[in-house]
């Protein structure tokens, strides 16, 4: 039943919104999402971190009530945790004090299934995910890949109609992730599990193209669906094939390819009209490392989705670094490739002091940084309390995000030798006067 998508809708989201309020500010985590999942479908939710895809998964399973909109399951509105759905968690969420068997057994016991049915079913599933012989082992004795197999066995033991996967492979090493993906696809496409539909949250484009029938692309600020891509390649899919690569590039273009005008790209200052762009939270040494790496490649360019594997870092981190490089004008993105600008090349080859100078000129352009500098230059002793600045930032960002933004601002400003920060007194200082800061008011 798995591969031929039917037209019977299993789950519908109607105008679903998730809004958090902190103080006066409203923060939209998920904005007006409409989505239908049909029986027999494998849907992937893809997007950068912070785009609300995990929130959406929690709304779909009923773990979280949306602020607005309805979730219809088989045309019935959901009013609590969906009994027909289960989740395979990114961090496994196994009970550390229960053995492999007990972890799977517990899910069945909670549904009040008698022991004589429960035990063989749990054993069968443990066997099917390839953990035969490990029934009495505790999670801490297993490798990450094996733990996730327990997660799969537990989720499938209760025979859910809707199987939700919350970045299930992202905490695993490359090899275990790959073999587990293959095994799941085999179970799914052979129709040997009674699951009606699978919904996977992912930030790995290749993984989504490899597994899903339909990819729902989301973007952040606010979290929303921006596009859908049908993947009509037959299983098992060949990663090296041209068709596969074409789909990957297509999806990537949707995620990061749009080039926008500089005003939109850089955003506006807090308090001004328009949207203040959040700075990606990255360490400058990592950014420098990426630029150096790119500078040594032919044509100073590389496929972005190759970078995580080549550099052995999390894809999310690569996205953040790419974003930072773009904002600072060190690189640009074209058709799924990141390409160094001549400024980026200069930065990569510069000495420590020269790098700081380049960096300083670049961050002075950022409206958020200009805003902070103006604020500081108008203050007594050119210094302000951390809390004061954070409060001001909270007009634009939710509380936690404001804290992170300020942290990033100070880090960048310290590197550029434009700001200094006294941790004891929690004071932020402006080091040198900015050349003619524009009025921000």
């Amino acid at each position, binding site marked *: 039943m798995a591969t031929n998508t039917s037209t019977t809708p299993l789950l519908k989201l109607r105008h679903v919104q998730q809004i958090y309020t902190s103080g006066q500010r409203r923060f939209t985590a998920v904005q007006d999402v409409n989505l239908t999942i049909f029986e027999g479908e494998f849907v992937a939710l893809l997007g950068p971190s912070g785009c609300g895809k995990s929130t959406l998964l*929690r709304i779909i399973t009923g773990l979280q*009530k949306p602020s607005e909109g309805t979730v219809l399951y088989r045309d019935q509105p959901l009013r609590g945790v969906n009994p027909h759905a289960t989740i395979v968690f990114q961090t496994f969420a196994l*009970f550390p*004090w229960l053995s492999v068997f007990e972890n799977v057994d517990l899910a069945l016991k909670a549904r009040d299934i008698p022991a004589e049915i429960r035990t063989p079913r749990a054993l069968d599933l443990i066997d099917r995910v390839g953990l035969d012989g490990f029934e009495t082992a505790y999670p801490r004795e297993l490798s990450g890949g094996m733990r996730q197999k327990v997660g799969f066995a537990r989720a499938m033991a209760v025979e859910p109609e809707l199987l939700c996967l919350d970045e299930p492979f992202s905490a695993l090493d490359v090899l275990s992730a790959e073999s587990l993906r293959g095994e799941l696809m085999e179970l799914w496409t052979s129709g040997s599990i009674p699951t009606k539909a699978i919904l996977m949250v992912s930030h790995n484009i290749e993984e989504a193209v490899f597994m899903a029938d339909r990819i729902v692309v989301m973007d952040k600020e606010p979290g929303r669906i921006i596009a859908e891509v049908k993947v009509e390649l037959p299983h098992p899919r060949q990663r090296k094939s041209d068709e596969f690569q074409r789909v990957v590039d297509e999806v990537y273009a949707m995620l990061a390819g749009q080039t926008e005008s500089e005003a939109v790209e850089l955003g506006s200052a807090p308090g001004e009209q328009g949207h203040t762009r959040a700075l990606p939270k990255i360490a400058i040494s990592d950014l420098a490392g990426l630029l150096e790496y790119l500078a040594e490649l032919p044509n100073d360019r590389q496929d972005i989705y190759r970078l995580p594997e080549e550099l052995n870092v999390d894809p999310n981190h690569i996205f953040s670094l790419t974003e930072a490089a773009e904002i600072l004008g060190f690189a640009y993105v074209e058709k799924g490739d990141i390409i160094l600008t001549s400024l980026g090349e200069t930065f990569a080859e510069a000495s420590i002091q020269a790098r700081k100078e380049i960096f300083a000129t670049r961050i002075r352009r950022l409206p958020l940084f200009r805003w902070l500098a103006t604020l500081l230059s108008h203050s007594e002793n050119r210094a302000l309390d951390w809390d004061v600045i954070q409060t001001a930032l909270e007009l634009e960002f939710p509380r936690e995000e404001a804290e992170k933004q300020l942290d990033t601002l100070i880090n960048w400003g310290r590197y550029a030798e434009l700001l200094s920060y006294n941790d004891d007194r929690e004071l932020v200082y402006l080091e040198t006067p900015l050349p003619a800061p524009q009025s921000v008011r």
Partner: protein
Amino acid sequence: MGLLQNTAVPPRDRLERSFTAGDFIVILFIVALLYVGARLAFNAPAFIEGPQISLEPATLPWYTLLSVGRMLAAYFLSLLFTLTYGRMAAYNRRAEAILMPLLDILQSVPILSFLPIVLLGLSAFLPQRIAAELASIVLIFTSQAWNMTFGWYQSLTTIPKELREASAIFRLNAWLRFKRLELPFAMIGLIWNSIMSWAGGWFFLMAAEIFTVGSKDFRLPGLGAYLQEAANQGDFRAIAFGLAALITTIVALDQFVWRPLLAWADRFKVEMVESDEPPTSWFYDLIHASRLFLWAGSLFAQANEKFDHWMIRRAPIQADWKENGSKLNWKLVAFYVLIGIFILYGGYRAVEMLFSVPWLLWGQIGVGVLATFLRVSVSLIIALLWTIPVGVAIGTNRRVAAVLQPIVQVTASVPATAIFPVLLFFFINMTGGLNIAAIFLMLMGTQWYLLFNVIAGASAIPQDLKYTSALLGLSRWERWRTLILPALFPYIITGAITASGGAWNASIVAEYVHFGGQTLFATGIGSLISQATANGNYPLLLASTLSMIVAVVLVNRLFWRRLYKTAEEKYRME
């Protein structure tokens, strides 16, 4: 080092705030409660004579059994209280706002101040023997319950989000959640806190088994009463026998109950790595492998299955989302109104009673608070002076640890109150003898919290920092100043908060003693509380208890919590 699990120190977010309206209401509530106790106490029979306590060593096994029984009853009461109270505080935001400050303040109320409420209150409507027995159990309860409740509450509020989500998605009902998630997650902390609670119970056992209130003399046959009577008569042979019985009991409990429990509970640790040195117990290994145990285990499994089935049927999960803006629940409102009336009326009458205390006595109370404050401070300083070097030696040097650790553990487990009479014998003829002895008792009762925390802190200093400081060629003093002391700071503060609270509570037994047929007392708030109880002077009892609560809470909020915050923010090595 599990003793770190000690959670008399409240969780971080609660430490951030200082006084709230909740605190005020809570203090008023306790004052009202004390007032009601005092009122009831007026109605108790005027003259009561307890049974004779025999000093014959042959009676000791029986007495010991009685005391252990009382401790056990109090412990189960504490456990019941812990599980319900902690749960309410952890899962209901509105309840939390009142329950946690209440708990915080309850633990600063000295055990004797509960005496009139429970004892005389109970004996106003129960037969005297039963009332005394129940009162003793409740008094022991008040020395056991609070830290357990804090620990359980803290565990419940720190269960990882993904485990909670997994329990929801796999439809665990309230029972399975308790059994498979909450209890296992909290288990290790609960056991360590239970060990601490039993130690607290032994410490105050003497005060909980023999007490006089005015002309009413209550005694309960038991180990605590035996030791107290032996001290009263200055009978050193009896003291020696009593101490031997006590230490035997404590060691036996340690070997046959707590160590096996700890070895068993190792499976409940959350870390995903195998620990290097899991707790071991020969007794656990012995019974774990026995046939009888296996047989009992299989029997238990069957019963367990049936019980779970029954509980799953009985308590179906409430899957529905809670509606926002819950409707006004008239029962709850009525309850709040009743509590409010109680607080207002009781508070009013209590204040009236407080006004009946003459100014001169208030002066004495002020001096008493100051004197006890000085004693507590001196005992803390002495404790710091010796525990820091010794703790660092044990914590950083395996060989020293191997020698000292067992000695420390045995010494720490002996309740200081039991040895106190022996000490008094040495100090009594010195000038200011009782003063020195009182400080000594406070020290003996509380230094262990500090020591165990220092050991834990010292063993947590990262190896690479030690290497770095060695490579930099830092002198001994510089190494202490730049590495060891800053690294220990959060641990020292955590230990000192508990130690300081304990020392204040110990003042009631340290500053007022019956010894060799005479009653000795020093100037201090603990002494005033004990005297007020002994003379049945309820207004004085109320006034001095209130003063002590306020003093302890003030010291905690204005001094310790600030230090704790600094420690958490600046010196935590994470």
